[in-house]
C-alpha cells in the first residue's frame, strides 16, 4: 500500500490537484447552502467526493502505465474518440441547464461527455504525430495535418453545439504546435483567420487588420511559400465573408451571450442577469470575502449555475481577492510544474502531450474565471477540478494521470 501511494507524495503536481479538488468539494457544498432550499444543489458535494475517490484510484493505476503503451494506443484511441463523438451527435442528450445540447451519452445508466475523453485522445494523437517528425514545423503546410487532427473532433463538438468545449480543442492545437517549436509568426498566421472572423463585425477594423496582416506576410516573405501567403489572405477574407451568415446561424441565446458581454442590459432577463449578478457577487467579496457558505448573492440564489459554471463567483464572494488569487496561483503553480515536466521529458512525445493538456486547462481556467468578471463572454465551460461534474472531474484526473505516467518515463 505504501509503495502504491508513495508516488503521490513525490509528485507536487498531484498534490496541487488534490488541493484544488478538495477545495472544489468545499465550494460545491457551499453552493448548496441556500436560503431557499433547492433539491438541485443540495448534497451534490457527496457525489463529487465519491468521484474524487474514484479519480485518485484511477490516477494510481493509469500513472503506472509505460509510455510506450500510450504511443501504441494514440491512433486507435483517437479514431475511437472521434467515432464516439459522431455517435453522440446522433444519440446524445442534453442535461439540466444545457438541455438543448447533445453532449452526453448514456451507457448502462451512466452518463458521460465523450468530448472530455476525446480531449485526451486528441492530445495523444497530435503529440504522436508531431513527435514522429524530424524537424519542427517550418512552413504553414507542415501545420495542415496537425490542424486536421484537431479540426475533426473540434467540428463534431461544435455541431453539438458546445462552443466552450470546442475552444478547449483550439487550446490543444496551439499549445502543442508551440511546444513543437513552430516559429511564432507562423502560429500567428495560423491563428489569423480566427481573429479575422471576430474583427469582421466592424468593416473598418477588419480593413486595417487585413492591411497589417499583408505587411506582416511581406516582411516574412522569405520564410514562406507564395502559395501560403495567398492562402492566409484568402483564409482571412473567407472568415470575413462568413462572419455575418455564421452570426445569423447562431441560436438567439448564443448571440445574446456574445452581445451582453459588450452591454449587459441587452438581455437583462437571461445572459445579462447572469453577468450582472456574478459581477456583484465577485466584487462584493472584497479582499477577504464574506466567509465560507456566507455569500449573500449565492444564498438568495441570485447566482446562476453556482455549482458548475459560476463556482468561481462563489469563491470570489466568500473568500474575496485572497481566495481568487490563491486559486489562480495554484493553477499557475500547476502549469509551471507541467512546463517543467515537459522540459525534463526525455521523449518529445511526452512533452508535446503535456502541453496539449496544459492548453486544455489554461483555456478552461482563463475562460471560466474570465467570464465571471466580464473579461470574456459567458460560455458554458467549467473550472477544472473545482466545478461540479463527475465525469468531467474523472477525465481531468485521467489526463493528469497520463501526464504523470509520461513524465515519469525514464526509458
Amino acid at each position, binding site marked *: 500500500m505504501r509503495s502504491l501511494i508513495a508516488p503521490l507524495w513525490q509528485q507536487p503536481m498531484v498534490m496541487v490537484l488534490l488541493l484544488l479538488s478538495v477545495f472544489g468539494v468545499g465550494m460545491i457544498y457551499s453552493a448548496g447552502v441556500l436560503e431557499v432550499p433547492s433539491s438541485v444543489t443540495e448534497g451534490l458535494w457527496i457525489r463529487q467526493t465519491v468521484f474524487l475517490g474514484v479519480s485518485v484510484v484511477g490516477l494510481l493505476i493509469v500513472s503506472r502505465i509505460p509510455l510506450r503503451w500510450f504511443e501504441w494506443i494514440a491512433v486507435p484511441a483517437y479514431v475511437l474518440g472521434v467515432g464516439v463523438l459522431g455517435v453522440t451527435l446522433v444519440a446524445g442528450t442534453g442535461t439540466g441547464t444545457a438541455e438543448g445540447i447533445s453532449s452526453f451519452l448514456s451507457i448502462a445508466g451512466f452518463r458521460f461527455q465523450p468530448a472530455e475523453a476525446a480531449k485526451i485522445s486528441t492530445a495523444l494523437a497530435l503529440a504522436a504525430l508531431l513527435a514522429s517528425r524530424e524537424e519542427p514545423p517550418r512552413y504553414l503546410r507542415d501545420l495542415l495535418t496537425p490542424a486536421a487532427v484537431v479540426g475533426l473532433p473540434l467540428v463534431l463538438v461544435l455541431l453539438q453545439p458546445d462552443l466552450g468545449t470546442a475552444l478547449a480543442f483550439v487550446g490543444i492545437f496551439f499549445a502543442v504546435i508551440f511546444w513543437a517549436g513552430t516559429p511564432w509568426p507562423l502560429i500567428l498566421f495560423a491563428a489569423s483567420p480566427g481573429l479575422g472572423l471576430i474583427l469582421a463585425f466592424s468593416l473598418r477594423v477588419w480593413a486595417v487588420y487585413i492591411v497589417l496582416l499583408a505587411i506582416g506576410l511581406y516582411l516574412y516573405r522569405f520564410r514562406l511559400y507564395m502559395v501560403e501567403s495567398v492562402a492566409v489572405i484568402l483564409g482571412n477574407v473567407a472568415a470575413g465573408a462568413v462572419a455575418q451568415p455564421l452570426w445569423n446561424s447562431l441560436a438567439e441565446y448564443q448571440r445574446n451571450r456574445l452581445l451582453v458581454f459588450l452591454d449587459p442590459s441587452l438581455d437583462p432577463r437571461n445572459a445579462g442577469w447572469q453577468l450582472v449578478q456574478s459581477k456583484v457577487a465577485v466584487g462584493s467579496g472584497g479582499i477577504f470575502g464574506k466567509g465560507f457558505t456566507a455569500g449573500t448573492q449565492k444564498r438568495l440564489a441570485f447566482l446562476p449555475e453556482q455549482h458548475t459554471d459560476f463556482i468561481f463567483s462563489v469563491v470570489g464572494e466568500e473568500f474575496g481577492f485572497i481566495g481568487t488569487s490563491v486559486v489562480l496561483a495554484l493553477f499557475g503553480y500547476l502549469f509551471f510544474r507541467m512546463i517543467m515536466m515537459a522540459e525534463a521529458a526525455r521523449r518529445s512525445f511526452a512533452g508535446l502531450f503535456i502541453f496539449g493538456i496544459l492548453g486544455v486547462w489554461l483555456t478552461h481556467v482563463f475562460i471560466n474565471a474570465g467570464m465571471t*468578471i466580464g473579461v470574456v463572454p459567458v460560455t458554458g465551460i467549467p473550472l477544472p477540478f473545482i466545478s461540479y461534474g463527475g465525469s468531467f472531474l474523472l477525465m481531468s484526473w485521467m489526463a493528469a494521470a497520463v501526464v504523470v505516467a509520461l513524465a515519469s518515463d525514464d526509458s
Partner: protein
Amino acid sequence: MTPRNPQQIRVLAVRARVGVIALLGVLVAVLFRAQVLRSSDWLLQSQSNRLRALTIPAPRGVIRDRAGRVFADNVPGYSVSIIPDRPDSMISTLHRMREHLELDDGRFEELSAQARSGPVRPLLVSVDAPFAAVAALQERRSRFPRLLIETRPKRRYPAGRVGAHVIGYVGEINETEVEAREGEGAEPGWIVGRSGIEAQYEPTLQGRPGIRYVEVDAEGRIVGSFAGVRRVTEEPGTDLELNLDLDLMEWIDHIFPEGMNGSVVMLEVETGAVLALYSAPAFDPNVFAGVVERSEWNRLVQDPESPLYHRAVMGSYPPGSPWKLATAAIALDLGVVTPSERMPVACRGSFVFGNRSYACWRPEGHGSLDLAGAIQHSCNVYFYQLGVRIGLARLLEVGNRMGFGEPCGIDLPNEAGGTFPEGVEFWERVYSYRAREGEALNLAIGQGPNDQTPLKMAQFILAIARDGSAPAPSLLRSTKAGANNPSWSLDIPQEHLEQIREGMRRVTGEGGTAYLSSLEHFDLLGKTGTAQSGGGRPSHAWFTAIAGPWGEAPEIVVIALVEFGESGSGVAAPLAAKAADYYLRGRHGIPRDTIQTLGEYFRAGRNTAWARRPER
C-alpha cells in the same frame, strides 16, 4: 523521435511561463480592480441594496368589431405582490394580508407553496385587487414592509355577455404554460387567453412585457431604480379587428327567445366573413378578467344550462329537414336528377323500400313534385327516392367531401366536427351491423347518424347561396387576397342552384311554412326544420336562410337553432328573419324598426300589401 536541442527547449519553456503569467495576470488584475479597488460599490449593491427585476406587464391588444366598436379593452387594475424574502416571513405576510384581501384557502396554499420554492421574482398575490383592499394595505405599509402594489392593465369586456363565447375570456397563466412559453418571457401572473378569440390569437394579443430594475433596501422597500442597467420597455399586444357586427349581436341577444338555449350564425355570402356568432345562454366574461373566484367558476361549470358551452361551434344537433338541401345538392352534383324532373312515385304519405315503409310527415301526401316543390313542402317521399338514386356509398362520399364530418376551420379553438359516417364501414364499427341501402333514405331527410353544428350548416348554406363553393368562415378581418379561398366546392350549374333557391324562396312565400317570417324590404329564402332531439323531449327548431335585397344576389346567410324549440317556422324562422332584417336595413340605409316580419305587421295592424305583390 526528434532529437531536440536543449537550448531551444529552454527558450520555449521560458516563453511558455511568460504566457501563463500573462494570462493569469490579466485575471488577477481584473479581480484586483473589482474586489479591492471597486469593492465598496459592489458591496453596496449586494448588501444594503439588492437588485430586483420587476416585470412591466404589456397591455393586451384591443379587440374591436367591424365598425370599431370595442369587444375587449383594458382598464387599470391593481396587483399586489410580495418582494422575495425568507419563505416563513413571506407566508406570515400572506397570513396578515388575508385580513384585508380576500384569499380563499386554495389560493393561499398555492401561494405558500410558491413562497416555499424560493421565488426570485416578486410573489404575485392578486393580479386584480379591489381598490378598497389596496387602500387598506397601503395605509398599513409598516406592517407589510415587502408589499409591492403596481398598476397593471386589467381586461374589460364592454360588450359583456353578448360576445362572451366568441371573444372568450382570459385567466392567469398556469405552471405548465409558463414552462412551455418561457421563450416568450412568460412568468406567473401573466394573463393569457383561455377561450374564443382571446385564446386563438393569444400570441398576437399578448405583446411583450418590459422589465425595470429596482434597488430594495434591507427591509425590502424599493429605494429607487437601479442605475447601470436600462429598463426594457414593454410592447403592447396587437389590436384585432373582427368581421363581427356588435350591434347586430346585441340585437340578436335582445330578440333571442327568453329562457331558451341555442345559437344564431350569420355569414357574409361574398367573403364567408362571420357577421354574428351568438350562443345562448351566455355569461359575463368580466368575471374572468382577474383571478377567477373559485365559487363563481364552480357556479358556471355546474350550471345545468352550461352557459360556458359555445353552442354555435361546439354543439352538434340532428340537422333534420334543412339537410334535404344537402341531399338535393349532392344529387345535382352527381347529375342523377334534373330540377324539373318528377320522381316516379308520387307522395301518398309513405314510401315502400325493401320490406319497409318509410313515412312522409304529411299523412295525406304531397302528390307528384319537382325539386323546388319538394323543398317547399319538405316532402320526405321525394327525398327518399333521391336517396335511393344517389345510393348510400355516393351520398357518404360527397357528404364527406363537403366536410360534414369535419370542422369548417373557423379561426376559433375547439370547433366541433359533428358526426357523419366516413363510409359504409361506419355501421359495422359503431352499430356492429352491415349498412343496408335503406340507411340512405334516413340520411336523405336529415336523420340517422348525422349531427351538425349550426356553424357547419351555415357554411353549407353559404355554398348554396354562392356558386356551390364554400370558404371557411372567418372572424378576423383581413384584407389579404385569397382570404376566402373555398375549402370545398360542388359541381352544380348556377341554374340548378337557382332551383334549390327557388324552393327555399317558396318556403317564405304565400302558402309556405315560413310565410309569416317574410320581410318587407328583402328577399328571404329559407328552410325550416324540426329535428327530433330524442329522449322524448321537444324537437330542436332550425331555420336556415339566405337573404339579400329583392331580386338581387344574396348577401347573407343566417342560421337559427333553438334547442327544444319545437317549431322551426314558429320559433327559429322569426328569429333568423329579424336578425337578417336588422343587419340588411343597416347595410342598405333603411331605418330600423322593431316590427319586422309579416307576422309582426299583422299583429301591429300595419299595411301588408307588400306581401302579395306579384313579383314576390
